[in-house]
């Protein structure tokens, strides 16, 4: 129904464009110059207004009316269920809606619940019909009105181009604002659950606790504050990230040095695309590679040496993650190494320094801030990386220094909590708290990296 309405509005937009254009052309007659704006702009203005009015009312009304229905349903709960706990009320309402929508519903709790639910479903159906018809008719009428008014407003002197350009500029601004909206959305969605979580759990127990098994101590939908210590996750994340950086930084950095200062153009021409391919491989593929190829290999060779290696060892996940980050480090370092002015290199060569001396004593120190920032960004990538660890690292929290054991990470636990079978409301708390922590870590790393790069730029320009 509402989708149909959207299509009707779209059709009206087309009509407005054509009608407006026609009318302006007719007005102009044989003297196109007598119009302030060309006919196409008269059409555009009409079309933009029609669409703007129609779609914005449609979207706002859809969202708002849904909330209204919820409020209304809650208010009209039968008296005999007024005593239900909030969770149960929520479930009753969502079940009633599901019945109304004809979706699959879980079995009712008891007879009273069922009658209440079915009665509520009736209410809901009524409201739903009202909502859909109301919104549809309302928006279409409003669009028609906009079409009509703009059509009537077409005359030779009207500055249709200026007005439509103003709308377009507004649209551009709104588009740029979506970035901000996304950030706000992320912050709010994470903060909402996180704050709720920390109202039950003191934050130091979360940040410094060493026992993580959040769903084992759940009581009436509230987690036990003693089982949500995230230190093992931080430690696991840290270890895997560390292994990844041990692989990625030397290889990535040396590759960048070689490609920018040693390699012939021919070598560069094929080596760079190869690195780009490495960068373009989806992480789920790396995860598969880690789980199916690398982990068994590491396990096998460890056993040959008489070491006991977990099949989901931190080493395997970290190693593959390192491979994933190599191109990241190398391309960022390549940029900063290339940005070191040739004059510095020339100065060093002029004193009779060899290439490697020039690089290690002049180029790399000059590029150091950029390289540090590349490494920070790499760390931030590794910390937030999900699929490799979900597929190749462990599930159980394990506080250890041994990279041959299985450890778990922040991202793995988020995925496990959200995709697990637990009641969504219970799992959301720790998951969103972890997500928020993750966001903070990556943002701080990113800010640092950007800050360093900015300072560095200033020195050379």
């Amino acid at each position, binding site marked *: 129904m509402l989708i149909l309405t959207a299509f009707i509005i779209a059709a009206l937009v087309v009509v407005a464009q054509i009608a407006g254009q026609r009318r302006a052309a007719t007005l102009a007659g044989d003297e196109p110059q007598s119009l302030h704006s060309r006919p196409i702009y008269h059409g555009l203005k009409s079309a933009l207004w029609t669409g703007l009015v129609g779609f914005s009312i449609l979207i706002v009304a859809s969202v708002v009316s849904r909330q209204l229905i919820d409020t209304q349903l809650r208010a009209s709960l039968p008296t005999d269920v007024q005593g239900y706990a909030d969770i149960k009320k929520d479930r009753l309402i969502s079940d009633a809606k599901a019945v109304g929508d004809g979706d699959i519903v879980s079995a009712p709790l008891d007879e009273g619940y069922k009658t209440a639910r079915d009665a509520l479903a009736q209410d809901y159906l009524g409201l739903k019909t009202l909502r859909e018809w109301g919104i549809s008719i309302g928006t279409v009428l409003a669009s028609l009105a906009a079409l009509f008014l703009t059509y009537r407003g077409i005359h030779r002197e009207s500055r249709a*181009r200026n007005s439509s350009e103003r709308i377009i500029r507004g649209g551009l601004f709104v588009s740029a604002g979506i970035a901000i909206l996304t950030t706000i959305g992320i912050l709010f969605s994470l903060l909402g659950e996180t704050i709720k979580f920390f109202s039950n759990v003191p934050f130091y127990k979360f940040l410094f606790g060493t026992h993580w098994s959040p769903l084992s101590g759940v009581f009436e939908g509230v987690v036990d504050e003693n089982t949500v210590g995230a230190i093992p996750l931080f430690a696991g994340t840290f270890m895997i990230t560390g292994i990844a950086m041990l692989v990625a930084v030397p290889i990535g950095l040396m590759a960048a040095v070689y490609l920018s200062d040693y390699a012939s153009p021919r070598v560069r021409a094929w080596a760079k695309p190869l690195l780009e391919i490495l960068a373009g491989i989806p992480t789920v593929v790396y995860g598969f590679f880690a789980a199916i190829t690398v982990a068994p290999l590491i396990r096998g060779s460890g056993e040959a040496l008489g070491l006991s290696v977990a099949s989901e060892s931190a080493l395997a996940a970290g190693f593959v993650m390192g491979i994933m980050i190599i191109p990241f480090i190398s391309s960022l370092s390549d940029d900063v190494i290339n940005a070191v002015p040739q004059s510095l290199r020339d100065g060093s060569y002029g004193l009779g320094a060899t290439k490697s001396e020039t690089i290690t004593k002049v180029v790399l120190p000059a590029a150091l801030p950029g390289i540090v920032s590349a490494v920070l960004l790499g760390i931030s990538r590794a910390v937030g990386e999900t699929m490799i660890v979900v597929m190749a690292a462990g599930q159980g929290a394990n506080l250890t220094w041994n990279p041959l054991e299985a450890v778990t990470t922040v991202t793995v636990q988020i995925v496990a909590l959200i995709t697990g079978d637990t009641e969504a409301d219970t799992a959301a708390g720790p998951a969103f708290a972890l997500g928020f922590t993750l966001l903070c870590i990556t943002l701080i790393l990113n800010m640092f990296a950007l800050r360093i790069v900015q300072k560095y730029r200033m020195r050379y320009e």
Partner: protein
Amino acid sequence: MNVVTEQEQIANTMIQAKQQSAETQYKIVSKNVDVFYGNKQALSGVTFNAHANEVTSLIGPSGCGKSTFLRCVNRMNDTIPICRVEGEIWIDGQDIHAPELDVVELRARVGMVFQKPNPFPKSIYENIAYGPRIHGLTKDKSELDELVTVCLKRAGLWGEVKDRLEEPGTGLSGGQQQRLCIARAIATQPDVILMDEPCSALDPIATARIEELMHELRENYTIMIVTHSMAQAQRVSQRTAFFHLGELVEYGETEQVFRNPTDERTESYISGRIG
């Protein structure tokens, strides 16, 4: 209510227009124009009047504000966020800063040719047809074709490009590109053409062609040209304005400015002592 204010406004504009016409039949009138880039003042108190169907050249050492003044006339300076223009400029008795004036319309009336030829990376035809198209100057394709032909002929380019109108304008030589830009400027049927050092990137032969062109165009247009070549100023212009450090130092008939300048700064400049 509304009607009254509207009438009042019209009345006001008419009065102003009358006052303006009292200042004779000048095409472009500038009164006390100050221009600031941020805190830096680039022009101060520039006042002068350009006559219709004449070529006015603006001369002066680099950085004295010639281009800045030129860009005030078609409000190109609006596109520089930090730039602030004060004072008044009138064209044909109309204040170009009047709120009801549409800057786009102004720029259609006041064409501009830039220092570096900047044809659109499109076909020669499209380069010229673009202006008429966006302003809706022609009814149909044949009219547009004709307009393109006329403009190319006016700009003296027709013979060279008539067989390759669909080729990109960027493929022409520098001089040809600049003439294409002139053709593009006159295609919107302006009254005024502003040229900012149009020949500085060209060789002498191409320069000569453009100067010739200016002579021809003068019959129909008012032209204002910035040039670094004193010789060129003397060859093409009827009047000359000498700018120095953001001030209009001297303005008068070209002959007079070059023969016996009243200001000593002018004299030093034309004799090559400053600049």
